[in-house]
């Protein structure tokens, strides 16, 4: 792994397995993200990409393996503790707080950074006002970063779809994560929006120092912004490498385009012979 030698790994998944009943959704997958990198996770539908993201954020039960983040073992941590440790994600099917304004959504994202207790809130102590003012500042900064500052007081549910995606990003960076996991951030966006998103993701890494791991189907986006790509198929790692290497990898090409000679599906080939 060349990337690892250059930079220390921020996230390290070793032999991670996830089982849903009798189905092995992930079988001993390794996935490493170097600090400061943009790492992509691709693969055909049902390959286990989102499941891996769920495992990393504590939302899927881990059957075997170890997940280390910044050197600490987080395998058994509940999701909110992982968030506090600096692992934050967005969702494929938007999970916007539709009962709040745009600003409140982002302020909720900064929840872990706002420090005051219940009594401060009930008695409105100076500490409450100081922290809330700071929280509004953080949230506005994030909204400006994604270009949604003008929509701050709108109910979040009224935003157009593309802007809801941006809102999720703003909410994610409001938590000041070390690692931001993006689950199909370009799904449902048109070409122009996707290009802008790609630029935005690079800016999150460059300007905010956030390491990024994304699951994505849009190959143009993946190839243009990623430092390293991991390809999954049937819950197993198929290939790993730089965008250029992945594009040339015959196994990956076969998995995506279907290759009759190798049989894109060994099980299918076996059945045919029998």
């Amino acid at each position, binding site marked *: 792994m060349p990337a690892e030698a250059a930079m220390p790994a921020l996230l390290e998944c070793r032999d991670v397995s996830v089982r849903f009943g009798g189905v092995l959704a992930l079988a001993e997958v390794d996935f490493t993200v170097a600090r400061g990198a943009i790492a992509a996770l691709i693969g055909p539908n049902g390959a286990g990409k989102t499941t891996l993201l769920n495992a990393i954020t504590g939302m899927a039960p881990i059957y075997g393996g170890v997940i280390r983040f910044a050197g600490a073992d987080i395998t058994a941590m509940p999701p909110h503790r992982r968030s506090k440790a600096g692992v934050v994600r967005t969702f494929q099917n938007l999970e916007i*707080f539709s009962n709040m*304004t745009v600003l409140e959504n982002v302020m909720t994202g900064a929840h872990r950074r706002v420090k005051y207790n*219940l009594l401060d809130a009930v008695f409105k102590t100076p500490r*409450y006002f100081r922290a809330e003012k700071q929280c509004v500042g953080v949230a506005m900064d994030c909204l400006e970063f994604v270009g949604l500052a003008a929509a701050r007081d709108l109910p979040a549910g009224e935003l157009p779809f593309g802007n809801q995606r941006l809102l999720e990003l703003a*909410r994610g960076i409001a938590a000041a994560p070390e690692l931001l996991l993006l689950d199909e951030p370009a799904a449902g966006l048109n070409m122009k929006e996707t290009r802008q998103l790609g630029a935005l993701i690079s800016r999150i890494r460059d300007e905010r120092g956030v390491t990024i791991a994304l699951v994505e189907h849009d190959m143009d986006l993946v190839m243009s912004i990623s430092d390293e790509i991991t390809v999954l198929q049937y819950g197993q790692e198929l290939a790993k490498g730089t965008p250029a290497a992945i594009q040339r990898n015959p196994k990956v090409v076969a998995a995506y385009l279907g290759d009759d000679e190798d049989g894109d599906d060994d099980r299918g080939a076996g059945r045919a012979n029998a």
Partner: protein
Amino acid sequence: MAGRPQKGSDVAGNRKNLAQVLAFATALFLAPFFLPNEYYLTVLIIACINAIIVAGLNLLLGYAGQISLGHAAFFGLSSYATALATAKFGLPMELGLIIAVGLTSLVAFLIGIPTLKLSGHYLAMATLGFGVIVYIFFNETVELTGGPSGYVGVPRLKLFGLVFSSDRAYYFLVAGVLALIMLVSLNLINSRFGRALRAIHTSEKAAQVSGVDIGKYKLLIFVLSAAYAAVAGFLYAHYLTFIAPTSFSFSFSVALITMVVLGGMANMWGAVAGAFFLTALPQVLQVFETYEVLIFGGILIVCMMFLPDGIVGGATRLLRFLASSLKRKQGGADAR
């Protein structure tokens, strides 16, 4: 910051909350001077007591989105706890209050740990089961609670040397407690805790990603809402001086939920409006005698059909509509 009401937490929002509570407290204080007779004072007292429970239930149901069909049981537990502590064991009422609220909160805590792992219909069923069990307990432990015929002889309230013997004095106390509860609740909502609760309502996953310990928050708000019900139960027992299981039955739990929904979910003033409306309505409808229940049900149906966001939500929309049409009229006049 014009236009839409700002629910977010900022200094302006906090000032608005304080102003609203002060106006509400003043209105409550003045209300008895306009009542035709003393009987209506009793209705007002009961309405305030109900509003205290509904305020807590609104935090739980309206904001955090967790249903409880067992809140009548918490109300009842507290009533019986203070009744037994003060009448049977002769303890001072201050201690009765502590025991009632402490015991009820503890029960809510213990019940909450397993049940709040459930959601939706399952949570409703679990809390319903709890309510039914407590109701049976009140009925069957005749030696302790007096059984179905109730517990007679709860002493009238005496706190810190003050005796609340007249209904008017009692009303001012209950109204003061309600105003205080409203202020505490509004302050709570207007903070990172309120945002966390509302986040749990719409997306538990996204709330967790934001670092919200959803299990802890659900339990916290469940216990807090039970504690509100306990304060109400304490005030109820020492006002009526007689309590019976029928006041704490399943149907009262349903009535409480109706008050939350009818008043307006996720709106603290909706909770008060719902409680006052549903407590007063049967009194007003008594003149219709046999048809009372029919008309009561009819009004509820009409409300739910035409006021999907509750009484307060509907009233706000109406005011906004009137304001905008007035502005349009003025604009037209200026143009001419």
